[in-house]
């Protein structure tokens, strides 16, 4: 038995789960898919007094269209998102990214609510929530509130939630685009990214109308590069466009060094991926 002792509660409603967290008085921890939490428990890097297991709550696992958005329940497993025809047709950048999300056995268990809450700076779903401008619906003692993805990620492994709040569902706007790309490099396929970029482009015959960019692996949180988006709207398209884009992206981030890669390498990598992504996005696919 690796983890330290804890009390275990398995509520069947979100209300009861919030009550359990309130009762735990700051000592509670939410268990969803467990694919990030269990390693921390096994190492005893975290020792919650109470584990509140959400897996018995019905109705938190779904993928459904809602107007011009796709709503995904917090307990939806990565594997279901990876395989969803709705995601493939309406959120194609997410569909492309899902095969990079860890490994099969992890995708079978891991959940979107868990991944967002864990807020790993090199995980795909937090970055995608920024890319799409997603809104998270969270429930706490005072009821539900909506949190924009751009307000959600505070620091590495840190979100903006109160200890008694739980992510319940996430809405992703369906973006209009003429082309898009998702690029990632990890040391081993499925591992956390050294660098990654998602790009979508709306274009005329010879100019870029607007572009949307999110990156990860190069800061303490994933980033949406709004400054680069601003500079790149309205530019004319020629052979040098991907390289100019690459330079702008590189100069807009200062990557971190860690034991996996130096700052210089991550920045270089992101630049290469940016050029490749822009090239792909400009080769419009219908």
């Amino acid at each position: 038995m690796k983890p330290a002792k804890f009390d275990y509660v398995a509520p069947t409603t979100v209300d009861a789960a919030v009550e359990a967290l309130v009762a735990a008085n700051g000592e509670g921890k939410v268990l969803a898919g467990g694919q990030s939490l269990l390693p921390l428990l096994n190492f005893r890097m975290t020792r919650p007094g109470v584990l509140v297991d959400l897996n018995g709550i019905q109705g938190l696992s779904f993928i459904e269209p809602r107007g011009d958005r796709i709503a995904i329940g917090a307990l939806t497993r990565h594997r279901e998102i990876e395989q969803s025809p709705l995601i493939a047709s309406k959120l194609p950048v997410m569909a492309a990214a899902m095969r990079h999300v860890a490994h099969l056995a992890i995708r079978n268990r891991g959940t979107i609510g868990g991944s967002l809450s864990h807020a790993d700076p090199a995980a795909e779903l937090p970055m995608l929530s920024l890319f799409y401008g997603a809104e998270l619906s969270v429930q706490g003692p005072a009821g539900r509130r909506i949190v924009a993805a751009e307000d959600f990620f505070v620091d590495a492994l840190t979100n903006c939630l109160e200890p008694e709040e739980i992510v319940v569902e996430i809405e992703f706007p369906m973006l209009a685009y003429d082309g898009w790309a998702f690029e990632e490099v990890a040391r081993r396929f499925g591992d956390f990214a050294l660098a990654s970029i998602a790009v979508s482009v709306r274009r005329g015959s010879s100019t870029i109308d607007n572009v949307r960019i999110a990156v990860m692996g190069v800061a303490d949180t994933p980033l949406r590069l709004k400054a680069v988006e601003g500079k790149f709207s309205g530019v004319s398209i020629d052979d040098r466009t991907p390289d100019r884009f690459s330079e702008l992206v590189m100069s807009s981030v200062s990557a971190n060094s860690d034991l996996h890669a130096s700052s210089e390498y991550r920045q270089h990598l992101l630049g290469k991926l940016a050029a490749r992504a822009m090239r792909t996005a400009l080769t419009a696919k219908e």
Partner: protein
Amino acid sequence: MSAKISVIVNGEKYDVPGVEPRLLLSDFLRDTLGLTGTHVGCEHGVCGACTVLVNGDSVRSCLMFAIQVDGSEITTVEGLGTPEELNVLQAQFREHHGLQCGFCTPGMLMTGEDLLRKYPLATDEDIREGLSGNLCRCTGYQNIVAAIRSAATKRSEKAS
């Protein structure tokens, strides 16, 4: 704090009282049920050696609590074939020398079973991507990929 759980493991029903919430599924299978075919490597979800099937899906048994599988159906490596009659994938591991020390093999087999069911595995690249969550320190993976390739071919021959 402990609970009684009921599980079906490899077709056999077990009712086990006194399960502590913090007992990992891997330790439950090995120490409580005595099914030591499931190997324990890193115990934090990196090596894949402890992979088992829970309700048909491959999961890392070191990243689940036993208490969470109450009412579930589990398949471990002991549930695949028998020493006298290996299943298709096991037979291909033998045929292609897909193991040396054997430590990673239970995880490789259980992951392989799930991959064969869920993905077309059209190319060796697909197999390598699928196996990227399982570490082997002996074979260099070539023979494991060959074994799964061969099992996939045999399955599609059987289906057609």
